[in-house]
C-alpha cells in the first residue's frame, strides 16, 4: 500500500511549519519567505539606518526621512530558504513486516519522508531527493510528485544514497534500515560531511529485527538475494544477534558523531509521530537550543 501525500501531510499536521535552523545557508541560496534575522534581500522591514554616501537614492525611505532632518534608508530582512535533501531507502530489505498489522519498513520510511517534506514545504524550505534532484523545490506540487515517485515500484534500488554532488551547507536526511556494513554507512556519512553537508540518519527497523523472537528450526532467507541460513534452534542465536545489532548501531552512531550528524532509531511498532517529532527537533535545532 503506497503512502499518499495526504497521509504525510496529515501526519505532520500537528506540528508547526518547520524552519530549518541554519547558521549558514546552502550555497544554492534561493530567496525564501523566512527572515534570517539579518539584513539582506527580502520583503519584510528590518531597520532604518542613516543614509550613507553610496546608497542608492531609491533606497531612501522618504516618509521616514520627512520626519526629521536626516535621510534614512529602509533596510529589509534577509529572507532565504534552506534546502533539505532526503534519501528514502526503497531497497528490497525494506519490504518487510513481521506481523500483519504493522506497516512495512518501506511504508513507514515513505510516510516519514513525506511528512517531513510537507513540514518543510509549509515552512517555506526547499526539498530535494539525493541522487534525483540537483536543487531543492518548494511548493506543494513537489510534495505530490514526491508521493507519486514513492508509490511507483523501483527495481533494484540501493540501500544507501549513491555519491552525489550536493550543494554546500544543505541538510541531508537519510531514512532507511541502514542494514549495510558499518563501513559503508560511515563512508557515506563522511563523504557528505566532507562536502559540508550536515545531516541526520533515521534507522527504521521492524520489531522482529530488534527483538529476534524466533524459536525452533528456521530457514532465514534474506530479502536482497543475500542467501539463506538454516538455524536448528533459533532461540540460541537471539542473544548473539541482539549484541551484534547493538554493535552495528554503535558503530554507525560513532561515525555520525564524528561527522556531527545525528542518528534517530525508530521501530515500526511505535507511532510515526514520535520519530517525526525527533526529526523536527533535530532539524529545527530546537533540542539543542532548549
Amino acid at each position: 500500500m503506497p503512502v499518499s501525500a495526504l497521509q504525510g501531510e496529515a501526519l505532520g499536521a500537528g506540528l508547526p511549519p518547520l524552519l530549518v535552523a541554519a547558521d549558514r545557508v546552502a550555497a544554492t541560496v534561493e530567496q525564501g519567505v523566512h527572515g534570517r534575522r539579518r539584513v539582506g534581500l527580502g520583503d519584510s522591514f528590518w531597520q532604518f539606518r542613516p543614509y550613507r554616501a553610496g546608497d542608492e537614492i531609491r533606497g531612501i525611505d522618504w516618509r521616514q526621512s520627512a520626519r526629521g532632518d536626516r535621510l534614512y534608508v529602509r533596510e529589509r530582512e534577509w529572507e532565504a530558504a534552506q534546502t533539505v535533501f532526503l534519501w528514502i531507502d526503497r531497497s528490497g530489505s525494506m519490504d518487510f513486516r513481521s506481523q500483519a498489522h504493522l506497516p512495512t519498513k518501506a511504508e513507514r520510511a515513505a510516510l516519514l519522508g513525506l511528512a517531513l517534506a510537507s513540514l518543510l514545504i509549509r515552512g517555506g524550505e526547499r526539498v530535494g531527493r539525493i541522487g534525483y534532484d540537483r536543487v531543492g523545490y518548494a511548493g506543494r506540487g513537489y510534495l505530490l510528485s514526491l508521493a507519486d515517485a514513492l508509490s511507483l515500484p523501483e527495481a533494484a534500488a540501493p540501500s544507501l544514497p549513491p555519491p552525489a554532488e550536493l550543494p554546500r551547507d544543505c541538510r541531508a536526511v537519510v531514512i532507511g534500515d541502514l542494514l549495510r556494513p558499518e563501513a559503508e554507512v560511515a563512508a557515506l556519512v563522511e563523504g557528505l560531511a566532507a562536502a559540508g553537508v550536515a545531516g541526520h540518519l533515521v534507522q527504521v527497523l521492524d520489531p522482529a529485527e530488534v527483538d529476534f523472537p524466533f524459536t525452533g528450526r528456521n530457514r532465514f532467507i534474506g530479502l536482497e538475494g543475500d542467501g539463506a541460513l538454516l538455524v536448528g534452534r533459533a532461540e540460541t542465536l537471539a542473544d548473539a544477534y541482539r549484541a551484534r545489532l547493538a554493535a552495528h548501531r554503535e558503530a554507525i552512531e560513532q561515525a555520525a558523531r564524528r561527522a556531527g550528524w545525528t542518528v534517530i532509531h525508530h521501530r515500526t511498532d511505535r507511532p510515526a509521530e514520535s520519530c517525526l517529532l525527533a526529526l523536527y527537533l533535530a532539524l529545527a535545532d530546537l533540542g539543542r537550543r532548549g
Partner: protein
Amino acid sequence: MSALGAIGFSAPWVLLALAALPAIWWLVRLIPPAPRQTRFPALRLLLDLEQRHDTPERTPWWLILLRLLLAGLVVVGLAGPVLNPPPPGSGEGPLLVVIDDGWAAASHWRERMAALAPRLAAAEAAGRPVRLMTTAPAGEGDMQAPPLLTWAEMKGAVAALQPKPWAVDRKAAADALDDLPEGAVGETLWLDDGVDDGAATDFATRLTRLGPVTRLDLPPGNAALALGMPTLVDNGLEIGIGRALADGPRHLTLLARNEEGQVLGRDIMDLGAEEVGASVTIDLPPELRNKVTRIDIAEEASAAAVRLLDGRWRRRTVGLAFEGGDEDIRPLVSEAFYLERAMSPFADVRRAPLASLLKTPPSVIVLPDVGQVPAALRPDLESFVEKGGLLLRFAGPRFAASADDLLPVKIRQGDRALGGALSWTEPATIAPFPLDSPFAGLAPSPEVKVYRQVLAEPSLDLDKRTWARLTDGTPLITAGKRGAGLIVLVHTSANSDWSGLALSGLYVDLLRRIVDLSDGESATAAGDHMLPPLANLDGFGHLGGIAKGAGPVAAAAIATTAPGPRTPPGYYGDPAARRALALAPELADLAPLPDLPGVVVALPEAAPSVALGPYAIVLALLLAALDLLVALRLGGRLAPTTLAALAVAALLLRPGAPAVAIEAGDAAGTIHLAYVVTGDAETDAMSEAGLRGLSTALRQRTSVEPGDPVGLALDSDELAFYPLIYWPMTEAYAPDPAALERIDSYIKAGGVVLFDTRDITQGAGAMPGGGGSPGDQLLQATLAHLDVPPLVPVPGDHVLTKSFYLLQTFPGRYEGGPLWVEANASPENDGVSGYVIGPNDWAAAWAVDAQGRPLAALDGNGGGRQREMALRFGINLVIYALTGNYKADQVHVPALLERLGQ
C-alpha cells in the same frame, strides 16, 4: 471371523501390518519436520555471527506418537473390528431365510428385523448363498420355491418387506419347499411370528429335512395381541383381547375412535402374566357408542389389534307406533310397555304416533296389534319399507279381526287359541330355530308357551318366509322382503296376553336379532351382490386406501371370508353402507408354536454387534487432519491466529442455540410469541420452530406482525411482555414453585398459556389431565399448583372458533383431542381464558424449517389440510389473546342493526 473377547475382526490378516509400526516410528523419528521458512532482512547480521554446530533436530515425541497412533488406527480399522461379533453360523451351504410376515409379526416388526440383521450380516460376510421365503401368501397362485438371491437383492427384499394383514400359510409354504432341488438348502434361519396356524409342526419337519434349522424368536413379552368380536352391552362395547401365549404381564390401552380418529372412549387394562386373554368393556354413553368405527390397542401396531366397526354395531333407533290407547288404563300390560322394556337395552326406542315417526323414519318401525294401517299413512309407510326400513308387526286382537296386506304372508282372519278351557290342545312351545333363520343359535326355552296366534294362509313360499315356528309347525315369526326393506310379523301379541314370550329373555334376544337386521345391512338383505373394497388395513393396522390386489367380496360371505391377498381386511361396499371385513383370528384358536423337534430356538443378542471399522478410520482421518495442522504450524505456514480462527469457525458452525428471552425494550415494542424452555433440546427446538412457523403465517395473513419467537425461563424472565406462552408438557421439566407462582400471576393478569400435553391418548374424560398418560400426569402435577378455574371443552360458539377463521376443530399433529378453556373467564380480562389446554402437539404441526418446509409428519390422515387447520387454530388463538372478546361482541350486531333501523 476371528474373535478377541468382545471384539472380533472380519479381516484379521490385515493386523499383520501392525508389524510395520516400528519402521514407521524409525522413519518419522529420523525425518524432522521441515524447517519454518522465515524472511529476515537483517540476515547479514546473522551471517556475521559465529555459527555453532547444532544437533540435528528430532521430531518431537508427541508427534511420533500421533503418527504411530494414526497408522495403527488405519490398520485396525481396515481389519474390520466388530464389537459383539455375531456367532458364526453352524451350517454349510446355502442359507434359507424364512420370515413369517403375517399379522402376528407386525406389532414387533422392528425388533424382529433387528434380530435378523446381525445374522444376515454374518452370513453375508461368510459369503454364503441365500434364499428368502416369506410364509404369508402375497398374491394369487401357489407359493413359489424360494429362489437363490444375490446379497444385494436379499438386503433389498428384506428392507422392503412389510407384514401382511392376514395370517401366514405354512401349509402352502411347506408345499413350496418340495420344489427345491436336492442340496439347495444347507441351513435354515426361521424368523417366526410365534403363532401356530396348525401347520407349524409339518412345516418344521420339512425344514429339518433340508438341514439344521434355527428358529429366531423374540424374548417373552412380545406375543402378538388380537382383538375379538366386539359386542354391544348396556354401558358400552365389550371386546375380547387374546394372545397366543401368556408370556408376561402387559399394560394395554384400548381406544374407541370415531370416523375422524377422535378418541371417544378408552379403557386401560393390565393383562396378567398368566392370562392368555381378557374381556374388556369400554364405557361409552349410547350416543357416543353409535359413532365408534374403530377399536384398537394403542400399544400394538398390527391389523389384528384393530377392529373396524360397521353398521352392525350401531344402535338402531326403533320407532314404536303408539297412538295413545289403553296405556293410561293398563300401563303395565300394554304392548308398548313390553316392547320398550325389551328393546331399550340395545336400541333407542322412540314412542310416537305413526305419522310423526314417518316424518323422521327410524331404522325400525314397530306396529303392535295394528290391523289396518291408516290409509293416509300407507304410502309413506310403504316407501319407508321400500327404501330399506324394517317394519315389525305384532298380532293381537285388533289385528286378528282385520289385517291389511302389508305383511310377509297372507293371514287368515281370526285367531287360533291353543289350550283353552274348551280345547284339547296344549299351549304350544317354540320349535328350535332353523339354521338359516336369523335366530340360529338362540335356544328356545320350553317354558315359553303360546296360547293364541294368527295363522298364515298356506302358500308355496310360506316355508321360506318362516323364521320361527311352534312345535306344531305353525309359523310364529314370518318375514318377507319388500323393496330394499323387510317386513317381519310376529304371529302372537307383543304383550303377555297371547303368549309367555313377552315375559321371557328370548323375547329380548329375538327382538335384538330382528332389530340388528335393520338399516339395510342385515344378513338376509345382503344378497349375492359383490361389495367392492373401500379402504383397507395394512399390516400395521393403518386404514389407508384400497390395497393392491384387493377384490370385491360377496355381501353374504363377508362375515365368513378369511382375509387374504385378494380380500385384505378393511371396509367393503359403498361409503353409506359399508361392511367391515375383519382380520378375525378366533381368540380361542390362538395357539403358540409347539415344541418343534430338531429346531433350535435362538433369541436375539442382547447387545447388537457394532462395526467399529468406520469409527477407527474416521478417528484416523481426524488425527491426519490434526497432523496436517501440526505440520503446517511447525513449518510456520499457520499462524496461531489462523488456528484460533478455525476454532472459532468450528464453534460458530454448531447448530444455533435456541432463542432466549430478549431485551425488555424489544419485547415491549414488538409482539413476540413465547414458549417455555423445558431444557429438553428436542422439545425446545420444536417449540421454537413451531412458533416461528406460526409467526410467519401471522405475518402473511394478518396484521399481527410478530418478531422472532422467544424462549422463556419461567423462574427468571419477565413474562408480562408476551401475550401468549406455549407450554409443551415434557417429563424433563419440573418448574419450581416460584415459577408456577409467576405463571399463575401472569394468567391472572390477563396472559394466555397454551398447555400442550402432546399426547392423544388422553381420553374424552371429564377433566383435562384425567387420563393416565404421562402428559396428563404432568399436566395434573402442574395444574395442582395453579389456581385453576372451572374448565369446559371449547363450546361451539366460543370466541376461539371465530376470532379470525371459523373453526370447529383444533387439530395439531394429532387430530381430535379435546381443547379445554375456562368456563367463565373473568370479565376483567375481557373474557379471555388464560388456560387453553389440549393434547394435540400443535408446535409440531406449525413447525417449519428455515426454508419454510414443514418439519414434522402429522399423525392424522388430514395431511396438508390438517396442517392448515392447525395453523388456523394458532392464528385464532393469537388473535384471541390479543383482541379478547371483541369477536364475541359481533353476536349483537343483528340486534344493533335492528335498533338502528328503527
